[in-house]
């Protein structure tokens, strides 16, 4: 029925009334003349029916024979609609322009979705695809999917499989991440273990290789601790990948100096908002002029998503906060707190994994500021692997 409805509307149909005369005979003559009459309804003085627009003129012989009076009471369909607006060039031009735009846009890929990644970030994958020329706005017919897939996998060894599916204006990149095998190759490379820093050895746990130092020894950075060279009972020398942990007592110190007068950058409270409208790959700035004062910037992007699909329409809003740098004088307590905060950050980063045996803090106040020195004695693993260079290279 939908097809019939569409067919009648595309070709156009006429609703007419047939009054007086013999309306039944009129219907029969129409049917015999090959004219399909539809939607016929009896009225008080005749009938009201419809026929295709091209058949209306063919009703004349039937009308003459039966003496009915025909009167058009409605015209429907595309031919009458276009006739009504034939003088409106702008309407037709707009329709053509819209059709051309839809056609042009349908040739491009406007949304790339990445599925199946957990360890490798979507941004990394998108970056590699962009390097290979596959990004939003590319013409879909020019994408050689098979080649792209191969090049993509070559550039991303973290992935074991990938598929690029283009569905209209949307591309779905489905990936599977590779599971890296345990690094058994590294176990065969001959290595020595050396000291990463100065210290006194407390304990050693040699898993592979020959111990070259012993608990109680004082070592400096670079000293050999566990040798990868081993002597067999046959008198031959072999090279192995030395393994083990060497716990030593080490000394660490760190000094922070903070002056009472510091240059501090603060926001003045004045802001400037700049918006950029992105349509397809075209960036349209919605502002005039530039900002010439020192600022801090915060950017927010708003994309249009319909049904989970990113449309190529984007509004980027950047808020610029005006800043000023000025000299601020702090008191001793504040400066000391700043220095301690910096020290705690250093400790968190540098002494990670080390056991602090003792900690000494020396605070010196001068006319210009505060200087804090931290001296620590730690117990930590100082073993670090170093490659043994042999005649054959590695």
């Amino acid at each position: 029925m939908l097809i019939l409805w569409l067919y009648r509307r595309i070709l156009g149909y006429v609703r007419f009334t047939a009054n007086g005369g013999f309306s039944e005979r009129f219907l029969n003559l129409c049917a015999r003349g090959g004219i399909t009459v539809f939607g016929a309804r009896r009225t008080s003085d005749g009938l009201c029916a419809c026929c295709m627009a091209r058949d209306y003129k063919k009703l004349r012989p039937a009308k003459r024979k039966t003496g009915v009076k025909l009167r058009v009471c409605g015209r429907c369909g595309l031919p009458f609609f276009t006739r009504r607006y034939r003088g409106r060039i702008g309407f037709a031009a707009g329709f053509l322009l819209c059709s051309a735009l839809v056609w042009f846009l349908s040739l491009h890929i406007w949304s790339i979705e990445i599925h199946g990644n957990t360890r490798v970030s979507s941004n990394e994958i998108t970056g590699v695809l962009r390097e290979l020329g596959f990004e939003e706005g590319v013409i879909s017919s020019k994408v050689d999917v098979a080649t792209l897939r191969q090049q993509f996998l070559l550039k991303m060894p973290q992935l074991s499989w990938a598929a690029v599916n283009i569905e209209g204006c949307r591309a779905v990149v489905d990936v599977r991440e590779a599971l890296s095998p345990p690094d058994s190759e590294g176990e065969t490379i001959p290595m020595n273990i050396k000291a990463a820093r100065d210290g006194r050895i407390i304990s050693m746990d040699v898993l592979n290789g020959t111990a070259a130092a012993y608990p109680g020894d004082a070592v400096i950075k670079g000293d050999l601790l566990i040798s990868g060279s081993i002597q067999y009972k046959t008198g031959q020398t072999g090279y192995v990948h030395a393994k083990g942990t060497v716990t030593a007592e080490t000394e660490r110190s760190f000094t922070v100096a903070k002056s009472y007068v510091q240059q501090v950058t603060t926001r003045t409270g004045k802001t400037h908002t700049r918006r950029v409208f992105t349509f397809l790959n075209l960036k349209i700035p919605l502002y005039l002029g530039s900002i010439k004062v020192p600022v801090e910037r915060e950017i927010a992007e708003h994309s249009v998503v319909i049904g989970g699909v990113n449309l190529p329409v984007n509004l980027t809003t950047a808020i610029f906060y005006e800043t000023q740098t000025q000299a601020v004088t702090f008191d001793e307590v504040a400066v000391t707190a700043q220095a301690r905060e910096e020290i705690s950050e250093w400790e968190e980063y540098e002494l990670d994994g080390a056991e602090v045996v003792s900690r000494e803090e020396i605070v010196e106040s001068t006319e210009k500021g505060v200087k804090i020195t931290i001296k620590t004695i730690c117990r930590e693993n100082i073993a670090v692997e170093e490659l043994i260079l042999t005649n054959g290279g590695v």
Partner: protein
Amino acid sequence: MSDKNKQRRGFREGLTALTGAMEMPMEAFSRNAKIELLSNREATVDGCRGVLEYSGEQIRLNIGHITVQFSGRNLELRSLNEHEAIITGFIVTIDFG
């Protein structure tokens, strides 16, 4: 019985025998009208030869050697062409005459 009627009867019997032998439906060769009903709301008359009477309460159609009369309410000829008529509305009775 006239010769013409005898001839017609012979032709019909022969046609029945032929369709039976070929295992084909009778309506493939018959010129009889076929009426399809969709509940009592729509009737499709295939083989309609013409409209004899038409009103909102009664539609009488010529279907060859007999007539069929649809009675009811708000009856409408939804489509009429050389071979087929579609009647919609609230059909109460169908009479053959």
